[in-house]
């Protein structure tokens, strides 16, 4: 049997991928939207539904960012409510190891696992620095260098609590000194599925040791294969079965009745995603300075980016540009070669959809990624809330099933079972 593809549905988030101006776009807050997307994913026999977390509204130039969708519900509360309206779909949420504490979060995740019959998953992220800390008791207590220490110790602490079967536990580590009785009996999965999203060497090591899956951002086929090989080798070095860590990139897609139709749709969507105002803001995120005086239909700035990583112009979004000068030089070269305005360039370099074509073409490409070890599956990010997954479920899933690379019915009741992960 060929390798089976993992599929997950990402609820559209608070960046410019999500097109709120489309008349088909619904509420990003009302429970009906979450229920619709989750039911669609379950109709498509997806492995899990994925939800991000908000800890503070994003700011740019010191002001609350107002061009993209703003606001979202609490992750755990929505996931637990979704357990009431779905039966088999996994329920994954991002929960920050910096601004949660192990006892409370382990208890909440174990509660979700019980109340969903074994469908809970936790995407572990950390946020160093002071920005998010302004909303929490400890403020910005976590140093950048300690972020993976905190994440690793948090995961280990949570596993200690889950293994206590509701009994006594004690954790003594550099970040945590906690003891007592957990109170929650062992949940259906034993341990909820743990995802990890960091991409640096430290993040890969963390995942290789502690995670069940990686939410990755490597999309180009060759790059994705290199990442896949690197991570699976790290897993083996830690004495684990390489197959026990799943690599699942977040990807976007556009379907059309012909490949040309899909390309045209994709181009239109990108123009809507990158309005003139958004083009300037996205340019500022690399240039790290106020560019509001620039014409989005004019040329790129001749000044260089500001290299102050402690005081970035955008706050509340993970750093995207490790080498600003290098990226700026690439962007300038591309703009000059193709005679692109700021907006045209931004459309070109950000947010190009990963899979564009007929349902047959997209199914073929997705399968190629999985069969040639570029990834184990995909977290699909659509640009419309909440109906953006309808066409994929109706048109692509049946083709994957025909190829024998995707289930035709749920065979297990837990997310761990869907993913083929070993028992915890």
């Amino acid at each position, binding site marked *: 049997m060929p390798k089976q593809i993992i599929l997950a549905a990402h609820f559209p988030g608070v960046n410019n991928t999500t097109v709120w101006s489309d008349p088909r776009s619904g509420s990003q*807050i009302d429970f009906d939207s979450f229920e619709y997307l989750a039911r669609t994913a379950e109709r498509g026999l997806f492995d899990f539904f994925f939800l991000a977390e908000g*800890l503070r509204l994003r700011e740019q130039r010191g002001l*609350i960012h*107002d061009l993209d969708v703003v606001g979202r519900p609490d992750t755990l*509360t929505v996931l637990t409510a979704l357990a009431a309206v779905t039966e088999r779909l996994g329920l994954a949420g991002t929960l920050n190891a910096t601004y949660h504490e192990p006892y409370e979060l382990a208890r909440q995740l174990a509660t979700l696992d019980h109340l969903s019959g074994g469908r809970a998953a936790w995407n572990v992220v950390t946020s160093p620095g002071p920005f998010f800390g302004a909303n929490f008791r400890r403020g910005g207590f976590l140093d950048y260098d300690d972020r993976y220490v905190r994440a690793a110790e948090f995961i280990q602490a949570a596993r200690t609590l889950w293994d206590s079967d*509701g009994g006594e536990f004690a954790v003594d580590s550099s970040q945590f000194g906690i003891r*007592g009785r*957990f109170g929650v009996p062992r949940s259906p999965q034993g341990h909820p599925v743990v995802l990890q999203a960091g991409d640096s060497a430290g993040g890969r090591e963390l995942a290789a040791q502690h995670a069940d899956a990686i939410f990755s951002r490597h999309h180009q086929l060759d790059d994705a294969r290199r990442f896949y090989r690197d991570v699976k080798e790290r897993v083996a070095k830690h004495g684990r079965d390489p197959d026990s860590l799943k690599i699942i990139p977040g990807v976007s897609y556009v379907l059309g009745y012909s490949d040309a139709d899909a390309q045209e749709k994709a181009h239109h969507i990108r123009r809507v995603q990158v309005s003139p105002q958004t083009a300037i803001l996205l340019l500022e995120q690399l240039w790290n300075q106020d560019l509001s005086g620039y014409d989005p239909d004019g040329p790129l700035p001749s000044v260089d980016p500001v290299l102050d990583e402690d005081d970035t112009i955008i706050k509340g979004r993970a750093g995207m540009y490790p080498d600003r000068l290098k990226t700026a030089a690439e962007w300038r070269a591309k703009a000059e070669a193709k005679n692109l305005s700021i907006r045209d360039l931004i459309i070109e370099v950000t947010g190009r959809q990963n899979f564009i074509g007929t349902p047959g073409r997209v199914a073929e490409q997705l399968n190629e990624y999985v069969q040639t070890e570029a990834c184990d599956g995909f977290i699909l990010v659509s640009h419309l809330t909440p109906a953006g997954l309808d066409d994929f479920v109706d048109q692509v899933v049946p083709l994957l099933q025909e190829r024998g690379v995707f289930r035709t019915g749920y065979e297990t009741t837990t997310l761990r079972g869907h993913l083929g992960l070993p028992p915890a």
Partner: protein
Amino acid sequence: MMGVSRMTGLHLAVALDGRHFDADRWVDLAREADDARLDFVTFEDTFGPPAGGGRPDAVLVAARVAPLTRHIGLVPVATTTHTEPFHLSTALATLDYVSNGRAGWQPRVSGDPAEAALLGRREPLGVEELFAEAADAVEVVRRLWDSWQDDAIIKDIATGRFIDRERLHYIDFDGPYFSVKGPSIVPRPPQGQPVVAALAHIPVAWEFAARSADLVFITPSDADDAARIIGKLDRRLKVYADVVVHLGEGGTVQQIADLIQGWARAGLDGFRLRPGRLPHDLTAITRELVPELRRRGLFTPSEKSTLRDRLGLPVAVNRYQEAGRA
């Protein structure tokens, strides 16, 4: 004549305290209360597990039953002592969304050293400080609920703006226990302000309730005691008496209905019935006691859809919107 006017409109709640983690059982219990058209259900909780077995997180239990119930208010207990006010506010606002305006919250404090060790960051506080911190936590939670005006999402295609950021507000709370900047990540919940309930069993809790709560639960010994306690409480608070219901142990439905009728004259707004054993005493309440109270004209199911409306609480005015207009 206050007692007479309230006689026709008593509110009824039921307290659920289950040490089990079975979703179907929770749904069955909540639906039983929902079908009987009780006004709300409370979900008991503590930060750490009590002796004899832990409970599931009460906010999540409420979220789990919300899509499968239609009318009933959902009021989980959540502890303020070792938790983040920001997370509490967003979780409860979200409960209000998933229940379409039926959310409430009963804050609890924790002075237990064993519970402090579960967090491992500080020594237990004294009782005065616990309630001072709880009052600050409720203040932060309430400010965050108001931090988005109801009209903040504008979706203005001409300017490309999803929100009008002038209609979002930093709450800038700065207190001895924590500071919270805001605004919330969750738009203002359907009720504006979900209902806040408090146990009022000691004087320091009465002060906390007066500052922070919409309604209180009291535990009087008889009708006179109820009247005495009500006299000490802030007049704006809705007052509910806790009554333990143990049928089959000498109590009959008629006797409990008599007790409710008698105590109601003290000026109570309603009762929270605490079934001694689940599900037996719950079904006795919903299938025998409630019909008896309806026969006596003491209870009429509300047709209102939000919990605030059905409890007779005023529309929640947004403090920031008013400040902007002033």
